[in-house]
Each structure stands twice: as C-alpha cells, then as structure tokens.
C-alpha cells in the first residue's frame, strides 16, 4: 500500500463517516462561492458596459486662437506625455462653424449675420477606452486646462463621475464578498475538520500509538478539505451559470440587455475561482490539523 493510496482511502473513509458535517460544509462553500462570483460577474460586466458607454467619450479643449501646425505638434506631444490616447483632432473656428451649421439644419439661416470665426478653435481628444481612463479623466482634464492657450476643457463630467462612483461601489462589494468568501471558507473548513478531529481523538491516539507519521494522519484531512473546496466551488459556479442563463432568458429583449452584451466568466476565471476555493479549504483544514496534532 503506497502513501497516496493510504491517504485516499483514509480520506474516503473520513468523508463517509462524517457525511452530515461534510454536506453542511459543502453547502457553506457553495453559497460563499456563489455570493462572491455573482458580484464579481456583475462587476466584470459593468466594466465591459463602461467601456461600451465610453465609446463617445471625448474631451474638448477650447483654445483662444488657431493653432499653427508647429503649435499643433507641441500640443500633441504634451497630450501624449500625460496619457495614451486613441485620436487627437484639431478643429479650426471655421470647421466648428460648419459643424454647428449642419446641426442647425433647416434653421441655419440664423447664422447668416454671424461671423464665421465666432466659435473658438478646439482640440478633440479621444482617450483610450478603459475604466482606468474613466478614473483618470478628471486629472487628464485638469492637466489639459494647464496647457498654454487653453480656455476651457469640456467632457461628460456628470455621467463619467456617476458611472465611476457606481463602479467604485461595485468594486467595494466585490472586495467585501471576496473577503467573506475567504473568511467563511477558511473558518468553516477549519471548524468542520476540528470537529471531526475532536470526535476522532481515540482513533488519532491509536494511529499515533501504532506509529503513524504526522503526514499519514494529516494528509487525508488536507485532501478532504481540498475535495470539499473543489466540489463546493463547482456547485457554486454551476448555480451561478444557471442563474445567469435564467436572467438572460427572463430579460431577453429588454432595453437594458439590448444596450450591452453580458457575458459569463471565461474558462480561466472559472478555473481561478475553483482553484482559490480549493486552496482556501485546504489551508483551513491544514491549520486545524496542525493545531490539534501539535498538542
């Protein structure tokens, strides 16, 4: 009988003997994983939505006078020095006037007595679309304001700030639910293994007396923890996937879902969540056995 076989058969025996406690632990782990991954899924989808909404995001930098080509190059360099951008457009007073005229459509005759250079020239800066950009946009705007010849910088400040607050709130919820997952899983596992160990004190004593090594005693519990983490997290992810599909079916065709594309986690993220649950449960079990066996 090799070590691994002995460990697996011991773990199997443990699980069968204490299946009631194990089911409770499994349910706790499933719920913890479900809560955490639900918020994490909302968060990742909100980030995606933010990127989609940010398609029209641009900063308009009004200048006091037309920028000559040499000055345009200087502006371009200074802007790129602060952040990566997708596009920079220089709009002359005349171009601005023509745009305005087009927007007025049938009412463009109101502009007939107004000089064509009454609108200030401007620079349109299109930042790279990401949540980071949203978080930095205020600083970017403040920086642009400091450039020479700039009168005013405009962007959808209110929308950006509200969206950013929402994302920040979601980030806190994800961190809290993540911490909850870590605490619940570790403590639940440690507690359940501790209970098992206490009810099996006599068996552990006999194992010590017949010369069982610490790893022979500890490894089955470690494996037990890892197995509970594996099955608990798989159950949690399956529940979340079913919930996700139900929401998609239930709200199919609604305006909200039509605007954005919602996606489930990609496989690497699923694997990461499962691995995290396994590690946490194994750690909980390890710390518990170490405490009791070192007595």
């Amino acid at each position, binding site marked *: *009988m*090799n*070590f691994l076989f*002995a460990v697996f058969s011991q773990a199997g025996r443990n699980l069968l003997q204490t299946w009631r406690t194990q089911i409770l632990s499994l349910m706790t782990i499933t719920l913890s994983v479900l809560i955490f991954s639900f918020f994490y899924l909302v968060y990742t989808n909100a980030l995606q939505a933010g990127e989609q909404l940010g398609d029209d995001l641009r900063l308009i930098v009004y200048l006091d006078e037309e920028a000559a080509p040499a000055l345009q190059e200087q502006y371009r360099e200074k802007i790129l020095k602060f952040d990566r951008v997708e596009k920079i457009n220089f709009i002359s007073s005349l171009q601005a006037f023509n745009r305005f005229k087009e927007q007025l459509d049938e009412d463009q005759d109101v502009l007939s007595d107004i000089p064509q250079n009454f609108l200030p020239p401007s620079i349109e800066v299109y930042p790279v679309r990401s949540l980071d950009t949203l978080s930095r946009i205020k600083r970017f705007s403040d920086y642009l304001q400091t450039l020479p010849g700039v009168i005013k910088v405009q962007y959808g400040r209110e929308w950006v700030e509200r969206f950013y607050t929402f994302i920040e709130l979601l980030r806190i919820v994800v961190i809290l639910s993540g911490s909850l997952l870590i605490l619940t899983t570790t403590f639940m596992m440690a507690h359940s293994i501790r209970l098992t160990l206490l009810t099996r004190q*006599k*068996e552990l*004593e*006999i*194992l*010590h*007396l*017949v*010369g*069982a*090594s*610490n790893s*022979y005693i500890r490894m089955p519990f470690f494996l037990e923890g890892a197995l509970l983490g594996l099955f608990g997290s798989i159950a949690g992810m399956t529940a979340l996937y079913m919930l996700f599909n139900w929401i998609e079916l239930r709200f199919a065709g609604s305006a909200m879902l039509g605007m954005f594309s919602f996606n489930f986690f990609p496989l690497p993220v699923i694997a990461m969540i499962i691995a995290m649950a396994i590690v946490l449960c194994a750690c909980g079990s390890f710390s518990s056995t170490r405490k009791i066996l070192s007595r």
Partner: protein
Amino acid sequence: MVDLTKVTRTFPPDVQALVDVSLQVNRGEILFLTGMSGAGKTTLLRLISGIEKPTKGYVEVSGMDLSKISRAKIQKLRRRIGVAYQDFKLLPERTVAQNIAVSMEVAYRSRLFIRKQTRDLLAQLHIDDKYNTRADKLSRGEQQRVAIARAVANKPDLILADEPTGNLDAENTELVMNLFHRCNEGGTTILIATHDSSIYNRPDSRVVTLDSGQIVATKLDTDKDTSEPMPYGPGTLLTDCLNLVDKNTSEPIQNKLDRKES
C-alpha cells in the same frame, strides 16, 4: 534489544511509578514482568514504547536512546514495536479486520499482505468468523485476542503485551501463548506484563518481579527450577511458585517479604 538504565518515572505530585530500574532484554528473548497491581509494569512498557518519558535515566530500544531521538524516529520505531494494551485500544465502530489492519496500513503494507495476515492471525486465534464483526460487538475475550492480533500483525521486532491473557480462558490463553512463541521463534523479542502464573511458570522463562516501582527479583533462564510444582490455591504466594531470589543478595525473596511484613 531493550536497555533500561537507572530509570525513574515520577508522576505529579510525587508518585514514584518506577525507581532506579535497570533492565536488559536481549534480542529474541521472552521476558515476563510480574508484580502486584500498581507495581509499575504498565509504566515500564509505556516507557519502552516511547509513550512515556523517564523522569531520570535512559531507555534504549534497538540502540536508540528514546529521549534523544526525533518524533519522526519514534513514530518509525513504533511501527517496529507491537503493543497489546491492557484496555485493548480498539476502534469500536470498525470491524475486526479494520482494527487489525491499522498497524499494517501505517507501515504501508500491500493490501494483499494485510488481508492474508489478518485472516491468518484470526484463524490462529480461533476468531476467523469475526472478520467483519464490529469490535464493539465482541466479547472481552475476543476483543483481547483482536488487540493481540493487531500487535503481532506487522511482524514487529519487539512485542509488548500488557496482561494479554487477563480475559481469556485456559484454551485461549494457550492459543495466545502459542502465537507469541511462534513470533519469538521468528526472532521477535517479547515482553509480557502479567499476573497469570500459568504462562510464565516455565523453566526457560526469565521473570522479573516489580514491587513499588523497583525490581525486587529476577528469575533467570539459567536458574533451572527443579522443585516440585507448588499447589496453587488461595494464599499461595507468587514468590513461592517461582522460587525467586534477590538479584543482589541471592536471598530468597519470600524471606525478604516475610521480614518486611513482620
């Protein structure tokens, strides 16, 4: 195989279970430890198996000083020592076969070996029909035989048996002693703590008697007992049966005890 040098074991507050005990047990020997209850027999066996540590003195098993070796080495050593405890220490909710298998599983024996060895031992002890019976469903005598089977199952170098025939009738006592003798013929050293004179009253047995934690007498295997068998009955003293002598003064131990009483 076992070497105790001036071993003292004191339990709080000041109970002296063993006082300055020195004892050597050679490889392949059978030694009987006798003495009244509380004389220190169990403590001596617990010291040899590394469960207890001496307050003073040295305990060496297979040339290793138990107070100096690591925990891992003690665990390894215990796999080479089979112990049959007075209170059996069986797992009540496990079957007989599972209880016996424990000592072999921790030594990573093959499943085939474990199954064969378990069946073989149960047959030798006449409890082969109890293979799948839970330990808590057995009588005291059957539980005792299971505990003995577990002690010898892993083919240890040393067997320590604490009152191994305490719950057995004459027939089963003989089965157990035959098993011990077969192990001994295979080279295993055996230490048996017992009150049962029928198992140690053999001319070739070495018997060590403990009293109040001290060795008061040793009957060596060279001390051939030529006297007539003593009629056993109420009032018969153990020392009468064995013709024990003080190891230091060669004075019959009975005289010493008589003097002590008067």
